[in-house]
């Protein structure tokens, strides 16, 4: 393995930026703004960050980094520990596998694809809780969370694109195909 490339400073800095943004996303999700049971569940901001990085900068969103963020979120927000991180890791891996092919499509296509992935993630979490015979949350609440997240994604994508200057790389060969 080319270890020098793997641990190059620029790559480490990008991973650190990814981790920092993920941590901020978790903190914002966990901020005590609506403690009453009727309050709308906060959007899944971490999913937006992970999805954006997995498609644009797959090498920074390493498997271990995504796992660490997902586990932190599960532990901090008391989601079913393990279900959240498992689904997040699989979603990230799937998006990385699609990789550069997505860059030729329009943003609307990307948005639709992410909406489908997020719906699958949420349904998988719900099913895991159901299978383990714990009390699953109301589907309406999960629906609100899905809507809020998908409404937030374009905004966050704009912020990442123009504030952090992270977009599609031009002219990069599809590195995944052998």
């Amino acid at each position, binding site marked *: 393995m080319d270890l020098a490339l793997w641990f190059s400073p620029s790559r480490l800095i990008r991973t650190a930026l990814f981790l920092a943004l993920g941590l901020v996303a978790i*903190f914002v999700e966990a*901020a*005590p703004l609506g*403690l009453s049971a009727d309050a709308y569940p906060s959007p899944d901001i971490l999913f937006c960050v992970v999805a954006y990085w997995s498609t644009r900068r797959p090498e920074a969103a390493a498997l271990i980094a995504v796992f660490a963020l997902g586990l932190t979120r599960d*532990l901090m927000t008391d989601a079913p520990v393990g279900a959240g991180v*498992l689904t997040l890791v699989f979603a990230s891996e799937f998006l990385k596998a699609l990789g550069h092919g997505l860059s030729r499509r329009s943003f609307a296509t990307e948005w639709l694809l992410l909406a489908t992935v997020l719906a699958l993630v949420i349904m998988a979490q719900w099913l895991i809780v159901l299978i383990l015979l714990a009390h699953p949350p109301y589907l309406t609440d999960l629906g609100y969370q899905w809507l809020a997240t998908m409404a937030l994604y374009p905004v966050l994508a704009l912020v990442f694109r123009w504030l952090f200057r992270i977009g599609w790389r031009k002219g990069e060969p599809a590195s995944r195909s052998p």
Partner: protein
Amino acid sequence: MGRTASLQETALTRSVHRILLGLVVLVSVFLLILWRSDNPRLERLRLALADRLVPSMSLVNQPLEFASGMSRDYRNFFDLYSQNRELRREIQRLRAWRETARQLEDQNAQLRALNNVRLAPHATFVTGDVIADSGGPFLQSALVNVGARDGVVDGSAAVDGNGLVGRVVGVGEHATRLLLLTDFSSRVPVLVQPSGRRAILAGDATSAPVLEFLENPDEVNPGDPVRTSGDGGVFPPDLPVGRLIALPGGAWRVALSADYARLEFVRLLRYTPDTRIDRAGGLILSRPRGAEQQAEPLAPATSGGGG
């Protein structure tokens, strides 16, 4: 770099990646099993993490709270005039009540002195700031920034100015996790006040938890105050919880007194139940003496001369 070498490299990278993915799945499944079986190790892991992250969390929280507070104040600003008038009227009413309360207090003190009453519960409290909630729809819980260092005990009741909020389910060094009354797994023994009927308050992720196992529902009325009964010895008796709501079909719910929408500070009660005889020889061999002595200086000054 030869072509075969780079091919080998990708093959190696792939197999490492596959092994990592397998490990991640294994760890997640293991954690899920721990979570489902309510393993105390997971709770400790949670609070160890919370202990680390609490200081940096407030950095993100403060601007967010400031913004939400501003929008709330902005709305309040518009009904300032009517609020002011209402408050003046209420002050007048409360002044009359204050006089009555003073008289009653004097009378109460005299009667207590006559009776030589011993006030049972040794209750002290720690106040903390709510720093995180479970953002997701899975659980209704909150994180408070006081912990074992400040004397929080597992299982304590958490109250705000108006009533019961929840109970402590995990204590870290600097952080405490609360299970709110609205969570699916919250169960609290309560008492419906004038009639003294007992019931269990069960959360179901709505803002008004259900009242289960209510004995003699004919004797209670909508609007009756609900308080903790103290059964089970976890919560002190007589903490206000809320008021009764009747639903069509004979179901009862409780409108909680605690203001969940504006919960910023909570008070965690340290409660030592009164002497209880729950096993053979319990009267002779009561709890270790050390625990009693520790609790003594914290007891309220009014605890009289009994015992």
